[in-house]
């Protein structure tokens, strides 16, 4: 039986994703381990979200289809680079973002950024979609195609419920 992380990665690859950068998150831990072990993709673990956006931008310039895997807490620090790199140059970068602070969260400090995540991205004009049911995992990969059609970064917020950890 496949895990939800395996299905998520397969869904992204089925839609053309071939370059990944990641910043750590507990919810994405299994996914990040899979990235490191997958020889069919390019993968660079980075130290911070903006750096990941830059690496993905470079991969796109080189003809790759990039995905940035990160936690929503990093949406706060990535704002300026999303505006002045991702949106300014119309870069199709798929951001797979674990949604700390969504229902099921047990750490209080995660709640404020969790609430702000979607409104913040919408304020910026970044197409943003919530996924709260693991049964929808095969649909997450369509964000890759959506980013290409929209010619801009797009965000998929993967709630606690998506991971079955609510």
């Amino acid at each position: 039986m496949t895990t939800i992380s395996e299905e998520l990665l397969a869904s992204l690859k089925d839609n053309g994703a071939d370059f990944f950068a990641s910043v750590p998150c507990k919810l994405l831990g299994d996914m990040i381990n899979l990235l490191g072990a997958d020889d069919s993709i390019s993968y660079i673990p980075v130290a911070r979200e903006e750096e990941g956006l830059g690496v993905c931008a470079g991969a796109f310039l080189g003809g790759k289809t990039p995905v940035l895997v990160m936690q929503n807490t990093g949406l706060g620090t990535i704002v300026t680079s999303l505006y002045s790199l991702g949106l300014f140059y119309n870069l199709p970068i798929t951001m797979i973002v674990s949604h700390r602070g969504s229902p099921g969260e047990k750490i209080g400090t995660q709640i404020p950024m969790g609430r702000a995540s979607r409104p913040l991205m919408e304020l910026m004009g970044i197409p943003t979609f919530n996924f709260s049911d693991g049964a929808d995992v095969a649909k997450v990969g369509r964000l890759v195609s959506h980013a290409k059609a929209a010619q801009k970064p797009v965000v998929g917020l993967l709630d606690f419920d998506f991971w079955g950890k609510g």
Partner: protein
Amino acid sequence: MSYRRYELLKDLAPVLDGQALVICNIGFPSQELYEINDSANNFYMLGSMGLSSSIGLGLATTTDKKVVSIDGDGSVLMNLGTLSTIGNYAPSNYVLLLVDNCAYGSTGDQPTHTGGSTDLAAIARATGVAHVHECTERDTIDVLQHCLDTEGPHVIVAKVDAGSPKLKPIPMDPGYIRDRFRQAVNS
């Protein structure tokens, strides 16, 4: 006579031209390179201060061509984690050129910490970058040529004087910069 980044870029432009894809740093560096030698091989990063090295790193993993990220002391200090990523993951065709003028030039030459006790070359070595080169002024020409001729990844810390000529913003649409550069990568 002072030897600033502008004079350095003038000396390096013939070395870069046709030999490398160039990611150029925000602000004056991009304006200077544009004025000295605009090329389809140049990507002018007009925003996102600190990410020139990261964009070049991502690009370098996609191509066999040489990739040179032109970065500065102030901007790399804003994204210092990039050096540890480069130390661990940069491919052999990657060159990071840190033009160190000990100043935040585009914002009025406020001093950076590299004019104090901070040593960028030592930081780069400590992250595991095998080939770190320190040079000043015109010596950088031969160092850059060496980096383009040999397997890397390489990090160059080139000391120059602070200061910049007064130039105009680059009159190019970002979509044009993007598409022209993407075509150059594939040509």
